[in-house]
């Protein structure tokens, strides 16, 4: 019993790394831009395809695939605000925009999926693992690839939170999330911070896509289920709160993993959504509330 508990706990923590990489970016974007990025999963898919292109087509090392995914999705993310969101914002003026942004990013999601389908076809593509081998922990075994996902997630998220806490541009991101008008009075260029935040957020998803490509295979809609799950995670953590998203990622992943000890495994994926519904009914602000600022 104890061994099973440990085994599922370890698997849950490893899965939490991927969830965190994905959900923290989604939450950061919402916290700063007030935009629910439905297309987040497509940037995960783009990361996977870029890794495939680098490793399988160009025969570059696995690390180059991950780096290429990070840079490629970052650059793509830089274009989203000036090309899509800013023009809509200008047209709407001060009117409420949330639902329209949702539709806009849903359109972007469909556009990116269709583009990937047209460019690469709908086949499941295999990407060789960046690292091979299995770590035997006694109670369970974890592939080196999954441990790599956890390690990279830990490194990137530590870097992200250090950036937000100590770097002048990171402070500017937090300031914009808290009070955009006051941030402008400090000389902070809002469109620049919006673009930077979007790029950082989707680049995290892109890296996740590249690292998970050897485990999930790559296809145009590979990121969509993750987007839906990330909504549940961000609601649990507090919409727009990256720290909350980090905590909630591990809570959900561990809960999912441990759930198979008490419920049939086909119900496992419902855990996140059950938690989301309960959270919305009981504590809609989430565990930690909304605060990119902290």
């Amino acid at each position, binding site marked *: 019993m104890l061994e099973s508990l440990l085994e599922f706990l370890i698997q849950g923590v490893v899965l939490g790394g991927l969830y965190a990489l994905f959900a923290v970016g989604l939450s950061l974007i919402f916290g700063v831009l007030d935009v629910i990025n439905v297309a987040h999963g497509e940037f995960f898919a783009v990361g996977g395809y870029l890794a495939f292109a680098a490793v399988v087509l160009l025969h570059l090392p696995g690390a180059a695939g991950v780096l290429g995914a990070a840079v490629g999705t970052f650059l793509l993310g830089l274009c989203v605000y000036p090309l899509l969101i800013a023009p809509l914002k200008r047209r709407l003026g001060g009117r409420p925009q949330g639902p329209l942004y949702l539709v806009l990013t849903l359109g972007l999601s469909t556009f990116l999926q269709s583009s990937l389908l047209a460019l690469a076809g709908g086949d499941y593509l295999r990407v060789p693992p960046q690292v091979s081998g299995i770590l035997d922990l006694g109670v369970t075994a974890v592939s080196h690839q999954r441990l790599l996902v956890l390690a990279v997630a830990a490194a990137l998220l530590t870097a992200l939170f250090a950036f937000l806490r100590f770097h*002048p541009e990171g402070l500017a991101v937090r*300031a914009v999330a*808290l009070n955009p*008008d006051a941030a402008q*009075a400090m*000389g902070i260029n809002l469109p620049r911070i919006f673009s930077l935040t979007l790029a950082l957020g989707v680049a995290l998803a892109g890296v996740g896509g590249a690292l998970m490509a050897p485990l999930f295979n790559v296809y145009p809609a590979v990121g969509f289920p993750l987007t839906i799950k990330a909504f549940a995670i961000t609601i649990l953590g507090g919409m727009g709160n990256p720290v909350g998203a980090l905590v909630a990622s591990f809570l959900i992943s561990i809960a999912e993993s441990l759930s198979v000890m008490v419920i049939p495994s086909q119900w496992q994926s419902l855990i996140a959504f059950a938690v989301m519904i309960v959270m919305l009914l009981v504590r809609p602000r989430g565990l930690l509330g909304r605060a990119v600022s902290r």
Partner: protein
Amino acid sequence: MLELEGVRSGYGKLEIVQAASLQVGDGAIVGIIGPNGAGKSTLLKTAFGYLPPFAGRIALDGREIAGRRPDEIMRLGVGYLAQAGGLFAEMTVHDNLVLGGYTVSRADKRRAIEAVYTRFPLFRDRGGQLAGALSGGEQRLLAIARALIVRPRLLLLDEPSAALAPRFIDLIYASLVALNRDGLAMLIVEQNVEAILAVAHRVFVLDLGRNAFDGTPAELRASDRIRRLYLGEDEAAAGPGL
């Protein structure tokens, strides 16, 4: 320095400021007073770029700045203090000051923050506290100190005395006068008429989005009509001493 000429602005299609004009000369303190809803804060926000003017001219040192973003106007040497101070309440006092120096070099920022700490030792002692934990008066002082880190030439202030205890109002205005002596020009929207009349070189009265008076505080005090209409005084109560 700053000139607004025939400025119309508002929110969406609602025009609140209707052809208002004013000027702020180098090193001057200029006050804007008027009844609630006159468009004073709207005019200030328009001057700083938060609201695009529907019409009119806004010029800084003769250069048109209408339509520019607030961060661009700030980089031209204009500071802005929002009604409640505009602090980042959930960030520390120190981080607020660091953000105040967002546009200057690291060395200049460090020097300027050190100068703030020397002038207001309270902020050094409480640098690690959340800005929102300071009292209302302390928050207003911090907002002013933060705005000064980049050494602006002109400061736009929206009701700096709002919701403050009298001793803090005196402190804030004493600080503003001291800064003005060093050459800082100010455009101050104020509901506290006595406070602004005591320090301003020139006063504009705005009513229903239009200029209703433009002159020195002494001229304003001498005008029975303005006193009656905008300062809420009747002729008998006003007396000759005003």
